[in-house]
């Protein structure tokens, strides 16, 4: 692979790491609330769970897109 190609791959990997961390922050943040002892209303619990599901879906899409790019 050329130096440019290596640079592009490194840059893409760096971007992917950043992009994955953004929804992962949502997952861990809300999961920590749900796992903690502090009370959460039913409505909030549903809202937080939906946010986790949406963020997990975004992570899956990012991984799938990275797989496609690598093939």
């Amino acid at each position, binding site marked *: 692979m050329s130096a440019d190609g290596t640079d592009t791959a490194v840059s893409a990997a*760096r971007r992917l790491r*950043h992009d994955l*961390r*953004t*929804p992962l*922050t949502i997952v861990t943040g809300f999961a920590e609330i749900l796992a903690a002892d502090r009370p959460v209303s039913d409505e909030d619990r549903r809202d937080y769970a939906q946010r986790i599901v949406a963020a997990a879906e*975004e992570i899956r899409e990012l991984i799938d897109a990275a797989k496609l790019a690598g093939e």
Partner: protein
Amino acid sequence: MSLRLVLIEDHQALREGLELLLGREGCDVVGAAGTAAEGRVLVEDLEPDVALVDIRLGDDDGIELTRHLLDADPERRIVLYTGSADEDLLFSGLDSGARGYALKDGSPSELVGALGAVAEGGTYVDPRLRPALLSRRSTERLPTLSNREREVLDLLAQGLTGEDIAERLVLSSETIKTHIRNAMTKLEANTRVHAIAIALREGYISPPHGSEMSSR
């Protein structure tokens, strides 16, 4: 009194999530923006205690935004927020004058701690970045810090304020400010946190005990 915060993050779900998460942790998110232009207006209009700025704002650059905000008012307190532990980005961020640098890997309570430290006039660098801070033991020689300057920077890194240090060392606040200023000049640092980062990197001071590097 709760912390008045402006949040600048381009990822809508994370922005909304942070509003909720930080709100639960006691922050008062007075404004939230998804672009640098909107964020700049919010910070200028609302003058929050602290602004949390994502480094990668879509096509915009959070570090550039930080420079603009601090050029207009160097007293503004800004924490840069990023998913990247890239070393060059870290030093570029510290060079911008931001007083805090937090990673998205941290928990909401950690982030609130960082925002609180910076809002109170202190500094913060995510503890996960300590290896990056320590890795650049460059061969270039920097002017030697005096023992007193090292001591003052060491206490700053442990979280003491200038006044705390003055009391601890039985010196005047003005003298402490002079030591800090001289150390910053010698280390070619733009801010206190930048000086601490360089002092750590160059081995002038040791990493503070505990899991975070923060100073008020």
